[in-house]
């Protein structure tokens, strides 16, 4: 089947029910998207489907059709980070970093829909993303910084 991933057309031959997460990681080598739980409890696998944050471990690849998939690799790079990624770097959010692709994808999608979130909005949008290292205070700081970066840009 054909998939639209980070603006490119990719072809894979896998069962329809295979979760997008594993197609990205094992079939396409896009390993920035992480496996943490497989049951929509941790958010490590978060990607954008038509711009919306979704848990890729819950999306059967056969259901995607022509929708566009964006992964952490698709929003920015080490040389040209996305404003949310830049805020994450500036606030030094990551500890082990394993959850952070998902955190960043979740935050980026929230800010797109809600460029000036309240503390409560942030709590709501981000609480499905688990961080076992406890980087939450820095995640809050980085989101506020990203809001500033984006509005000033």
């Amino acid at each position, binding site marked *: 089947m054909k998939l639209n991933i980070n603006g490119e057309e990719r072809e894979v031959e896998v069962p329809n029910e295979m979760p997008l997460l594993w197609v990205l990681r*094992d079939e396409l080598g896009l*390993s920035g998207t992480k496996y943490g*739980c497989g049951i929509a409890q941790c958010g490590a696998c978060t990607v954008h489907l038509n711009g919306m944050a979704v848990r890729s471990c819950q999306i059967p690849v056969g259901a995607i059709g022509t929708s566009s998939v964006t992964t952490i690799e698709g929003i920015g790079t*080490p040389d040209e980070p996305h404003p949310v990624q830049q805020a994450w770097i500036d606030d030094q959010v990551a500890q*082990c970093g394993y959850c952070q692709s998902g955190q960043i994808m979740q935050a980026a999608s929230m800010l797109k829909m809600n460029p000036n979130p309240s503390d409560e909005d942030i709590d709501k949008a981000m*609480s499905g*993303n*688990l961080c076992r290292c406890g980087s939450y*205070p*820095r995640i809050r700081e980085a989101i506020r910084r990203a809001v500033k970066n984006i509005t000033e840009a």
Partner: protein
Amino acid sequence: MGKLKTITRRGFLVGSAAIAGGAAFGVYNFKTPIKNPLLADLKNGEVALTPFIKITSDGVTLITPRADKGQGSYSMQMYLLAEELDVDPLTVQQTPGKPDAAYYNGVVIDEGAPGLGEIVGKLTGMQITGGSSTVPDMFVRLRYAGAVARETLKLAAANKFGADVASLKTENGSVVLADGRRVPYTELASAAASIEPVQDVTLRDEKQWRYLGKNMQRVDITPKSTGTEQYGIDKRMKGMLFATVRANPAMGAGVASYDASKAEQMLGVEKVVSIQSGVAVIATNTWLAFQAANAIDIVWNNGSFPSSSAEMWRVLEDHAKPEFQNVQRKSDGDVDVAFESGEVLEAEYRAPHLAHAPLEPMNAVVLVTDEAIDIWTGTQIPRFIEDHVAAATGRDKTEIRLHVEPMGGSFGRRLEDTYVLQAVEIAQAMKGTPVKMTWSREEDMAHDYPRPMALAKAKGKVSGKQIDALKLDLVSASLMGSQMGRLGLPAAGPDAMLTTGADDQPFAFNHYQVTGYKAPEMVPISSWRSVAASQNGFFHECFIDELVSQAGADPIAERIRLCNDEVSRKVLEEVAQISAWSGANPEQGRGRGVAFVRSFGVPVAEVIDVTMTDDGIRIDNVFVVADVGKVLDPINFEAQVYGAVIYGLGHAINSELTYENYKPQQTNYHTYQGMRLYQTPNIVVKGLENAEKIRGIGEPGLPPAAPALANAIFAATGKRMREMPFNKHIDFV
């Protein structure tokens, strides 16, 4: 701070060696009185010398043997080297290096056998990351290596240009000549390797520090913020296959029988392999392997330990008896006499088994060939893995090559290596093909080597407005016995971990006794962030709070009165200061609690504010003061304290492993939640620098979190939280 400047050669010798195209600087292998015969025909200096710094014409590489599980130790090791070497940690290369005895950890063993660490560590070449030991162990060693390398490079430059060494400076990877000309280290490396290294160096005074003591930019922060950090689980090799396992949750008991006929027919399945602990599936991708593994019918053998938590609690209760007494390091005054008169307060406390559950499930990539067994994985015990794999496969140790990969968390989890041994078993069935074995989250939760469950019986007495007597009887299985047994280092004699966190606190009660009772090993147990202090600190500090409130004393003032250590007292005073402490009950429906625990040599006090809302307890603020002697990296110091507090609070609120039929009933994060962002309080962190010795901060922030919360909940509601997790007894927002 002590006089660290004057310490130069403390049990180690830094030297240099020629390597292909340049020089290496680092620690010599064992300095035996007899000349090592191997050294005679060495061509490549790397074997004799375990480097921390390599300089070739291609560039500078810093070697960071202590594992980075997220705590930032790679960065810290690089900045320690760079501080003396004068290079930019963000532009030089980094590698964890090859496992080697010269990277021994002289501090971690000290915690169990004070004073012996340096000797035992060297003898066993115990390259372990843990016990918040990286900074204390490496603070001098790495700066010294950096200084020796720098001075040797300067000498090489002086020889080459006929200059006076004293006229030379170093800056950002170059020696600067008196006339301002810059000679890159890379051009001096070969010359430096051919001269005797300069051993007599003086470490820079902290006033001259460029990096240390200021916020450091983590070397891995950009990859970790852009999805480009390659963890063990991300390793990819040409022709690689993907595997997973299902092992008996009754660890060690193995399989009675299994039927894989369905799985063998499934799409993408290459092979079903029987392994010691269970069954493995090798397939063309991880998801197909998961699917097939779940389709195998397996009959497990019964374990050799009680099958349920209820039974395990009974075992602990049965062992709170004199004949099972194992350790008693604290016995002041006479508690029995004290309890003969007056009102005696008694309470029982419990702490459950807890999984580490780092977000990256355990995994390893293994390639078995005639030449070697190559292993790529994240671990805290690289040398033990090499030993264990050699023993399990009958291969020579030199043929086991371990490549340590970045880790998605650990919290002590990667002090165990069964997942690696499983991956080796699987790859042996696929000789010549690299195989990546990944555990499902469910497999991970069922085989975590948890924190032990523990029981405390507490007795105490107040006299007037003061605490007079405190007696704690602590019962659990021996953590050191279980963990060290698997590392092949059987721990004889008493296990100090039964009481650590409760009998090593800086308080002087008139009558004070802490006794550890040893129950048999049940579920195999291991070190969980902050180890024994996480449960024993909870017992000790909550019961002190009970006595304080019976005495009608102020929780901070009474602790200060009882405190017999100057550094700790200042920590308590400071936490009162930054939290604007005025007592335990600020207003109706709110509560403040305090707790103090000294662990890994670091005294930490925490004050927690809670509010009783209609939806349950909300944690509002946490004020933390810790003294590590010297805060080397304030921004990461704060992050580590945040992490430890959140890990401590999250588990105290809602996490436990309960066993039924040998299996934890918690199979994934839906039943093992930890803390989420919306529950995260405002956390204020302050570091003090009064302590004589420098210490690490990865763990010590954790132990006071649970008791401070329990004490705050009592202040707000009048309810004592004597059992973790607290949500068994009260609701949380």
